[in-house]
């Protein structure tokens, strides 16, 4: 301990106030632990400030304009004008409302909030450097610490973020005007969500992707539905190309890509969004002081209680590895807090759902057919096309499907894949089904409201049993 320094103590120290951290802190305090949350930037972390929330806000605002523009077949004629500054202001209002909410939820739960950057001193102490010059620092001793420092965008060599031309998603979400031409590097979920937003807002969007389709990791028939719709929106895809270099031009920038034959292609653009993945943030923590190792991906390894190699230190959320999703972070935060409070908690969830808020949405949970095969099951699948669902037609949607995967013997639900309207909400039922150990018959034997998209879930389960009424 440094002379003249005051060391205060806390039972539970949480480092980082994103979804992983704030949930851990609130739950810890609810369980009676004296809890301190250290955040260096903004409550809510990436998710609320620069991720999930602002992206979904822009998606829904651009949808209102786009839907109205596309509704002539429904007898609605509109030529909406978009005021991007106004849209940004609204989106920022949503973010502010939610981040303030997180702050006050923490306070109401009795969490001590400390602003600053926490670095490990040893496995029972951190030093918190307060932001700004001459703000000083303080030492904090803890019984348990939960590391929830999140992740940051990966970069492409020679494409350093410059706040002007080469943008991470965070900057793209904060643009005050719609770029005339936007180049997007990476067709993962963030690249696809933002390409869709800007295409709907009127930008000419070009996407370059090293692999050979959009949304790597998703099954082909799912990616195809989203790619087709994106192409209808005018998005231009270029697969098998890697961003190689760029330079400024009179009108903006010119980006060079190379394919595997070293063929160079050039794209002019006003801005370039680089969205090629995210990597854990640990360099803010001085992990070397406690000799806590990260793996080859920079992830802090944890056990099923989210405990690191140190008994007293947990790690949750993006910093603890894939899937880098806010709800996984929250669920881990909850487990770590309970474990720190001495409960026999474990991250033993059977499935973590995931959604992509493209047009249409994608949502998945549990195993795909081929994952089920690889896991030794004899999978049976059932599929219901969205175009055969009455509710979908009433909202003028036709593309997509609901697919369920079960094992042929016992018909236990193993997984589901949905691409279509409200996929992100429909997946909830199937997530509960997997956690409950539901069989296909249980889903098919549950009455689903008419007319809803959830009837397609019902029908997919019936189809897997050869009992579909509304499909052949």
């Amino acid at each position, binding site marked *: 301990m440094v002379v003249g320094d005051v060391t205060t103590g806390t039972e539970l120290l949480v480092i980082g106030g994103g979804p992983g951290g704030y949930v851990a802190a609130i739950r810890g305090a609810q369980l009676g632990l004296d809890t301190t949350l250290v955040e260096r930037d903004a409550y809510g972390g990436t998710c609320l400030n620069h991720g999930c929330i602002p992206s979904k806000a822009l998606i829904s605002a651009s949808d209102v304009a786009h839907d109205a523009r596309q509704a002539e077949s429904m007898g609605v004629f509109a030529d909406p004008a978009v005021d991007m500054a106004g849209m940004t202001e609204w989106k920022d209002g949503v973010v502010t409302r939610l981040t303030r909410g997180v702050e006050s939820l923490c306070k109401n739960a009795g969490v001590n909030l400390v602003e600053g950057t926490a670095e490990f001193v040893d496995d029972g102490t951190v030093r918190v450097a307060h932001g700004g010059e001459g703000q000083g620092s303080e030492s904090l001793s803890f019984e348990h610490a939960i590391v929830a420092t999140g992740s940051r965008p990966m970069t492409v060599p020679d494409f350093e973020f410059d706040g002007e031309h080469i943008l991470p998603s965070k900057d793209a979400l904060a643009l005050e005007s719609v770029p005339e031409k936007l180049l997007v590097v990476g067709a993962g979920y963030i690249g696809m969500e933002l390409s869709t937003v800007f295409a709907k807002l009127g930008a000419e969007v070009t996407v370059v992707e090293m692999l050979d389709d959009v949304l790597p990791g998703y099954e082909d028939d799912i990616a195809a539905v989203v790619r087709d719709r994106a192409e209808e929106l005018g998005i231009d895809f270029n697969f098998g190309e890697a961003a190689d270099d760029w330079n400024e031009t009179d009108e903006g920038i010119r980006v060079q890509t190379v394919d595997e034959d070293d063929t160079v292609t050039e794209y002019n653009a006003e801005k370039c969004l680089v969205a090629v993945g995210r990597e854990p943030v640990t360099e803010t923590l001085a992990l070397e002081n406690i000799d806590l190792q990260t793996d080859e991906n920079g992830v802090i390894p944890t056990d099923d209680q989210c405990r690191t190699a140190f008994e007293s230190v947990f790690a949750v959320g993006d910093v603890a590895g894939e899937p880098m999703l806010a709800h996984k972070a929250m669920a881990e935060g909850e487990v770590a807090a309970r474990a720190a409070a001495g409960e026999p908690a474990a991250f033993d969830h059977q499935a973590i759902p995931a959604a992509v808020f493209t047009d249409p949405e994608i949502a998945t949970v549990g195993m795909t057919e081929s994952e089920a095969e690889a896991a030794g099951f004899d999978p049976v699948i059932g599929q219901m096309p969205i175009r055969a669902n009455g509710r979908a037609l009433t909202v003028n949607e036709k593309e997509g499907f609901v697919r369920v995967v079960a094992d042929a013997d016992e018909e236990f639900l193993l997984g589901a894949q949905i691409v279509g309207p409200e996929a992100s909400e429909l997946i909830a039922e199937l997530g509960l089904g997997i956690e409950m150990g539901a069989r296909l*018959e249980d889903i098919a*034997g549950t009455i689903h409201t008419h007319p809803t998209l959830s009837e397609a879930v019902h029908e997919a389960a019936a189809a897997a049993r050869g009992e579909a009424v509304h499909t052949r």
Partner: protein
Amino acid sequence: EPAVTQRVQVAAPPSVRRLARELGVDISNIADSSLGRITESDVRAHANTDSYSSTQEQSNQQTAAAERQKQQAPSTQSVSSVQARE
């Protein structure tokens, strides 16, 4: 008005309820003796001990009728079984 009928009597999934019907087991009998959610094995165990099951096929309709009576009456039985579990 969509005045929805309220049922919620047995904590057993549809697949288990169907099995009970197939085996001629009155699932509310199990509800009275089981702790928590009724499983397929509870039903099978009951089918082996339940004299009910020996009257098989024909009893299905009686079973169904009995079940219906229960479902129409408020669930005094499930409530008392819930208390019995404590």
